[in-house]
């Protein structure tokens, strides 16, 4: 792992506060981004227009190629400010096209700056199929030996179908304020009540879906500060370290891990109890720990477990 490093606040550029295009501009080598189907070409959602809903000239995702530490990479960045990064027909097709092109042109990696609530409900059926096409395209890229790195640190998190897609990638990098899950807390609360999941309880939401939890569980491979340069550093590192393509042995190992996780988890849905079971010495203090301390904690847990 990276050596623990905490940047002074003044030197940081918050990843969460950046737009998708600002992230691209600051994360990849300066001036290297070449966009495909840029806003000037106005490749937009026909369905939103039918509904009278404002459209975006890029349908909420910027794609293209860039350089990262001198290497050639393909890039996609979802814009959370547009429909929560929701995947519609065009948005999804841009992602799928990018990944299919990666199989042909073989960049050193595909870097997916994921920020999405999942399927865009305004064009629900098309979005659902589109997400499954993106998933297939990610796995095709991995099977072709192309690393696909997901970066998660936007204010809208990474949910729904995109939460599945992220876990199909070769590596997942998260910030401590990033969130990765399936259903949003509001959806679960609407379905089963605030006793099941109080979506207003921010601390509860973070310890159930947030970056520190995901990193401790191994669902995220790297945990970084909410800082664009920290994401850049992790993306460079994981571009070359990413998990190999999937075969029977790796999926058997994944299955054993998930099976053990389920079988050993304490009853209920309490993160503190789960962390305690995992061997975290002071579960209630995790929220106050900084990124470097959480990294050290995971290293010590892995040491204790082997």
């Amino acid at each position, binding site marked *: 792992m990276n050596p623990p490093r905490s940047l002074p606040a003044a030197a940081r550029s918050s990843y969460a506060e950046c737009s998708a295009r600002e992230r691209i501009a600051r994360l990849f080598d300066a001036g290297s981004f070449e966009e495909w189907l840029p806003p000037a070409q106005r490749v937009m959602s026909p369905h939103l227009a039918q509904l009278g809903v404002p459209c975006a000239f890029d349908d909420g995702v910027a794609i293209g190629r860039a350089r990262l530490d001198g290497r050639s990479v393909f890039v996609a960045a979802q814009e959370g400010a547009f429909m929560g990064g929701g995947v519609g*027909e*065009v948005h999804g097709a841009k992602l799928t096209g990018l990944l299919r092109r990666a199989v042909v042109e073989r960049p050193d990696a595909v870097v997916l700056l994921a920020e999405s609530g999942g399927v865009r409900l305004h*064009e629900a059926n098309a979005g659902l199929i589109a997400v499954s*096409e993106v998933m297939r395209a990610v796995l095709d890229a991995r099977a072709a030996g192309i690393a696909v790195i997901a970066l998660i640190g936007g204010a809208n998190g990474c949910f729904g179908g995109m939460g599945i897609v992220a876990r199909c990638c070769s590596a997942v990098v998260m910030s401590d304020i990033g969130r990765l899950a*399936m259903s949003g807390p509001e959806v679960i609360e609407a379905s089963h009540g605030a006793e099941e999941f109080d979506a207003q309880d921010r601390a509860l939401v973070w310890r159930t879906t947030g970056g520190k939890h995901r990193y401790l569980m191994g669902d995220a491979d790297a945990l970084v500060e909410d800082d664009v340069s920290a994401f850049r550093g992790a993306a460079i590192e994981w571009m070359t370290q990413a998990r190999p393509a999937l075969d029977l042995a790796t999926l058997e190992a994944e299955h054993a891990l998930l099976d053990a996780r389920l079988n050993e988890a304490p009853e209920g849905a309490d993160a503190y109890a789960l962390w305690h079971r995992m061997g975290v010495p002071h579960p209630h203090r995790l929220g106050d720990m900084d990124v470097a301390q959480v990294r050290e904690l995971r290293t010590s847990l892995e040491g204790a477990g082997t």
Partner: protein
Amino acid sequence: MKWQDLASALFAAGHGITQVGDLLVGEPEFDGRTIAVVGSADHAPIGVAMALRQARVLLDTVARHPGRPILMLIDTQGQQLRRRDELLGINRAMAHLGCCVDLARRSGHRVLGLVYDQALSGGFITSGLAADACDALPEAEIRVMRIPAMARVTKIDRERLEALSQSNPVFAPGVDNYVAMGGVRRLWRGDLQACLREALADAPTGDHRALEGAQRGGRKLAQSVIERVLRA
């Protein structure tokens, strides 16, 4: 259709498909070869446990029975909406299931999805929508969301959505809409055994859904956008 009736129509008596909890599993004979059946019943929610149970069947099939066709029988209310499942990483478990389907495809198994009752949102992405081809019975229901709920969430008048859904398959639930968009390859009508035989014989190995969506007129832009990205 109940899965028992479907199984009886597709396979000879003594097909051996059983329901264990919400899980369907079996190894029936069809046209002189064994088929691996895995699925869910009773509108099962797909949580961590169910995703792993289905994944187990797929991994065992790949490990022990190379090339054996796999039929996924789908009836789900979607992903399990529980905090415990989220805490335990339901998205990772569902991704794992999708990866197991993908592994089977790449290892030379033909993987067919069949929506025999209902398929909703997240529960569909890593089952039928991850298969080589997904078909459906005509009376099945596939959706992300019903129009009243969609109207609430999007704050668009229900009447307007209903009117638009007459001409645009993107907005309303229904298997016909999914066929038009290429997400479902075709509907099984009439002789179900003939349908299965045909489905096994002509399952594609690549993902042609965007192309079919364009050809059928239900998803007019996806394929052209993909092609534009490839040429840009």
